[in-house]
């Protein structure tokens, strides 16, 4: 067991982790900041974000607009004080990224250009073609190399947190290239490990998105919040689930059923307009668009593909030049994977799991309930997404709250006593012994690859776009069975160097925890809100009972316990959530009322 002593430890080096590391290094360059990532930082899944990042910049937009869109978009399950803080910090973070070199798209005069996105009243999505996440991640990674305080542990896999005396004091990590363990002790720890979309079958996520940080915190008694809210992105490649960005529609693309009909007008999203019109039709929010797909499918108005039924994403009218400038990655993907040129052909698309809206609950300063532990980015639930995240809010979240987490962890580390003592190393050794025992156990021949497939299938069946109690219950039961069978796995590879068989098995352990919290939280929420929609007598939102955050608490060898916590409402009282013509009418009414008050 090696030992490395840090002041601040950050697990995960995607957008949130890198932003936190830079913030910490700038806050106090004399500190030692350990940055652990299971992949090279530029491989982190932030790299795959396409459309862009929100930040109010146009004169006719306002922070209040962004606040309203986000809270209503989240079906009122947002922490409103956090959203208010968030929208005020987005634009400064976008400017900071610009100063660090991010190649944001520009207007002819050299000023920043923004594009339209779903559920947003005014265009406020900063973008770098359709490789926004890629450019942001590389900008952050490259910028991070100028801070000597940041000590990177590239390709180190986190197997456990070190928790002693009610306080987190580091983490135990494994180097796949040597098979050796290191105890990284620290006075403050930030989790920035990303989401858990890989627990579902068809998903847009990279293979690394396995809920590691969520499961690590959860096993140490930190609850997981609002896990039932998994986002289905409406336009993904059938089969692989690969993403066709919302910017396809922001730039003017249409969704059509098998008859060439723009079906969204039948689901409260009309009127139809030729060009993009904010908050209507294809620029509705993701939950509503995915739900509309499900209804079209039920009505037999989708068409079959080998990867499941689909509708058409039609961008032919945008023209080759605009497609190449604004959506080059999408064009390459359609060409390479499907032999389709979007300038001349339509793309078959269907919904796939995209984003984990729940996660590790934190306060507005990113602190969790475990002393010394902070969380930021998709692994966290700071409270801005509610029951449905708006596209382009999650990239902005990485920088706003990554920055806060870096600052807060430094403050905490300076107050906290040093993480020392033989006990911490003993705890790390015990954690290492457990995962080595998993690798070397005889087991009963269960293959973890099979369990992973069964998990992903049952999650898709029970926790899909629409849900019923019997199906969710069956999924919970299945997950219980899979957790039992997981104890009997036999890992084929017993070697020490680059044993990815072993790492995948450890990841599956994380995934099963997160999946169980998700399915049980879904079963217990007896209402329909945002991305959680039921067909079994709970079709409406029930603010009297469920204007509340679910909290899944870990229990060893048992299903989690689900409790509920209050939602912070400040200035926007729960109301009807509407888009299209009705949404516009309700907004006009509000504006009239406001004018009468003045």
């Amino acid at each position, binding site marked *: 067991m090696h030992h490395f002593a840090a002041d601040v430890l950050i697990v995960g080096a995607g957008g949130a982790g890198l932003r936190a590391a830079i913030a910490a290094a700038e806050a106090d360059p004399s500190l030692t900041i350990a940055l652990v990532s299971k992949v090279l930082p530029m491989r982190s899944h932030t790299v*795959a974000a396409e459309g862009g990042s929100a930040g109010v910049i146009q004169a006719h937009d306002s922070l209040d607009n962004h606040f309203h869109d986000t809270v209503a978009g989240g079906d009122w399950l947002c922490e409103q004080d956090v959203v208010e803080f968030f929208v005020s910090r987005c634009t400064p973070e976008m400017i900071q990224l610009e*100063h660090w070199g991010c190649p944001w798209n520009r207007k*002819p005069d050299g000023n920043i250009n923004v594009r339209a996105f779903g559920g947003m009243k005014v265009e406020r999505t900063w973008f770098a073609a359709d490789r926004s996440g890629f450019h942001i991640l590389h900008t952050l990674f*490259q910028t991070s190399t100028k801070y000597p305080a940041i000590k990177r542990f590239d390709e180190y896999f986190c197997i456990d947190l070190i928790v002693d005396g009610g306080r987190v004091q580091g983490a135990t990590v494994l180097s796949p290239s040597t098979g050796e363990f290191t105890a990284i002790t620290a006075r403050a720890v930030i989790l920035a490990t990303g989401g858990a979309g890989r627990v579902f079958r068809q998903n847009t996520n990279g293979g690394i998105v396995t809920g590691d940080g969520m499961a690590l915190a959860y096993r140490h008694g930190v609850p997981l919040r609002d896990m039932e809210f998994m986002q289905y992105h409406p336009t993904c490649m059938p089969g692989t689930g690969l993403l066709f960005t919302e910017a396809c529609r922001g730039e003017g693309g249409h969704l059509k059923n098998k008859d060439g009909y723009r079906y969204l007008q039948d689901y409260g999203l009309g009127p139809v307009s030729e060009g993009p019109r904010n908050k209507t039709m294809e620029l509705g929010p993701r939950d509503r668009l995915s739900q509309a797909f499900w209804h079209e499918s039920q009505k037999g108005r989708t068409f079959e593909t080998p990867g499941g039924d689909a509708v058409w994403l039609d961008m032919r009218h945008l023209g080759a030049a605009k497609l190449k400038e604004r959506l080059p990655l999408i064009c*390459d993907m359609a060409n390479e994977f*499907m032999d389709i040129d979007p300038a001349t052909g339509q793309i078959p698309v269907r919904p796939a799991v995209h984003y984990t809206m729940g996660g590790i609950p934190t306060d507005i300063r990113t602190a969790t309930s475990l002393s010394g532990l902070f969380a930021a980015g998709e692994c966290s639930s700071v409270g801005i997404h509610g029951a449905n995240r708006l596209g382009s809010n999650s990239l902005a979240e990485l920088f706003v709250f990554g920055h806060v987490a870096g600052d807060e962890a430094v403050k905490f580390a300076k107050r906290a006593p040093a993480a020392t003592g033989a006990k911490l190393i003993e705890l790390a050794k015990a954690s290492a012994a457990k995962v080595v025992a998993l690798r070397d156990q005889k087991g009963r021949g269960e293959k973890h*690859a099979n369990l992973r497939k069964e998990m992903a299938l049952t999650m898709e069946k029970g926790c899909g776009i629409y849900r019923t109690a019997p199906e969710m219950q069956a999924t919970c039961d299945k997950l219980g069975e899979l957790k039992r069978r997981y104890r009997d796995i036999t890992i084929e590879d017993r*070697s020490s160097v680059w044993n*990815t*068989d072993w790492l995948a098995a450890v990841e599956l352990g994380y995934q099963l925890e997160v999946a169980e919290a998700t399915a049980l939280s879904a079963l217990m929420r007896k209402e329909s809100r945002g991305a959680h929609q039921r067909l079994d007598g709970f079709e409406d939102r029930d603010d009297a009972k469920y204007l509340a955050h679910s909290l899944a608490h870990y229990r060893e060898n048992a299903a989690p316990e689900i409790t509920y916590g209050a939602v912070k409402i400040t200035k926007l009282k729960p109301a009807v959530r509407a888009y299209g013509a009705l949404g516009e009418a309700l907004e006009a009414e509000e504006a009239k009322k406001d004018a009468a008050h003045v």
Partner: protein
Amino acid sequence: MSEAAALMKTVELRVLRYSPVTDEKPSFGSFQVPWTDDMSVLQALQTIKDTLDGTLSFRWSCRMAVCGSCGMMINGKPQLACNTFIRNLPKGPITVEPLNHFPIERDLVVSVDDFVKKIESVYPYIIPKKPKSVADGPYLQTPAQMVAYESFSDCINCMLCYAACPQFGENPEFIGPGAMAMLQRYNGDSRDGAQKLRLDLIHGEDGVWSCTAVGVCSDVCPKHVDPANAVNQNKTNSALDFFLRFLPGAAR
């Protein structure tokens, strides 16, 4: 194997295997993999790992040619496994090997340490001409100014160009095409003011002059970054910088 799988056509993958713990030298393993027309080489490797041999090791993540993890030699050519489709390869066995010119750590996993050091060495960040605070707002940069660096910023660090570069094969000290593209990405950026600092890095024999302009780096680039162009621009800049320093007033 399920009935559906039994009906599928199969393809042979010949994969270079190596474990530093048990093997003296690498050798090929052969696998018969059921495949469909939409299947990538990455999916074939995943099928091997999940159903035939769990000990096969390789890096992968995004599956959509943007994370840069899954570069490998496929039929002798450096390619990303995720966007190389079996349907587009010649009939017959597919050979899969780790990227050329890098030490093998295990199976298809190569050491990336040297590459990371190289990209870190080129001051890969904006050193501003005129520092600004966030309150001052963004820099102005016209679309025409972006053209000077934008394509170089598209590099996904997949290292295919290093596996293709004969000079890097002969001289591992050569800074190589990817790092040179990154250098040019910053040197071409109107916000940056550290061109000379970076050019000083590449005057030497391990710098830009190592390149013999073969151009295969650009041929294999999955993102059309054209690192050969970056190298050429830097040859011009390096020569210019070298001569300019002897002019009166060019105190350095």
